[in-house]
């Protein structure tokens, strides 16, 4: 079963995404900030990460920078999900950008394509 790490400071989004992914046959883990996200990612090595942009303390692009410096994490695909407009290219190498509110079917489609399952 493919594992998705959700990095978002908004517990409502985490709840929503967790339910959405688990209902569709994925396992999930969640982190509320960049630091926690990196620790969990290193331990769990997820197959995909969804990433928020603006979070307290460090922001999403910095999470991406740190994960791409880790050999074990650098090739994990990242989908940016943010409520801020104009964030399309904030993480240049993300596989996709979705702005909140997003279409759940679109997200699932991207996840499915990315994970190739």
């Amino acid at each position, binding site marked *: 079963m493919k594992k998705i790490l959700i990095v978002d400071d908004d517990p409502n989004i985490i709840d929503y995404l967790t339910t959405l992914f688990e209902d569709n046959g994925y396992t999930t883990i969640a982190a509320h900030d960049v630091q926690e996200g990196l620790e969990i990612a290193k331990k769990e090595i997820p197959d995909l990460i969804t990433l928020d*942009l*603006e*979070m307290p303390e*460090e*922001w*999403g*692009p*910095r999470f*991406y*920078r740190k994960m*791409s410096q880790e050999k074990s994490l650098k090739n994990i695909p990242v989908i940016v999900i*943010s409520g*801020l*407009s*104009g*964030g*399309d*290219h*904030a993480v*240049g190498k993300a596989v996709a950008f979705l702005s909140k509110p997003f279409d759940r079917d679109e997200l699932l489609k991207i996840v499915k394509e990315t994970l190739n399952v």
Partner: protein
Amino acid sequence: MFKKILFATSATEATDHAARVAFNMAQAYDAQLFIFHVLGVPTRGYSQVVLDVKTKEEVVLDDEYVAWVEEEIKTHYTKQLETAQKTEIKVAIGFPHREILRAARELKPDLIVMGGSTGENEDSVYKKSLVGSTLQRVAKAAPCPVLVVNRPAASFWGGMSNIVFGTDFSKASDAAFKFAIKLAKTLACELHIFHALDIGSVHTGRILTQDEIETKIRESLRRIRGRYLPDMDGIGDYNFEVWEGIPYIEVVKYARENHADLIVMAHHTQKTSGEDTRLGSNIEQVIVRAGCPVISINR
């Protein structure tokens, strides 16, 4: 390092991304933030009738109108102002670049924050070429560094931790280096010293062999080492790198590949004279294209 920040804003969506960076910096570095807006341009010298920069309408200026504009700015930044600590809204009348420079002289900020080009409207008083001419003029004459956020994508870093300093070994670059090194030390940033070897324009008509290019790269690396290494004490993590290509593209690419959250470059004074207010074309292009904020230093 940043005690006072002057955020020059049109108070429209065009500067929202710069606003994100300005408010974020003010909060992160506990700085006083001046939100500075030029509301209108006098239709004639010393006229009380001004052309409102937002509505493009001629209005008669009085205290009531100024208060209304201030209220508009407050409304535009309601969300940010809720969490911001030390902010002050300032409104002025005149040509934007002149008033911003005047405010910079009076308020003595450590940094001016500006957005890039404003909108598509040809009749905008800010006008724009590649970067807005207001920006060009401010960057050229500002008494302090000018931070520019042009692409929306450049505004999501949430602070500075990884700086690319682009050098062309000019005297102007030395001033920019001083600022970059101070910033890197104060904020404990990783620092990249980067030079782009121009293989486009300098050698027109002749194609360099890769051996020649790589010899020049080696020379430039030695030059970087000789010039900047002695100042690297106290910098935790630094890199020296030279890439060949079109300089502005290489700077933008290098910053992207290294996930830089800030580019520092000198405002180029070479080749500019008199009334020519253009920024050096390289930094101008870097400002337009960068995926992170760009700080331009002119002295």
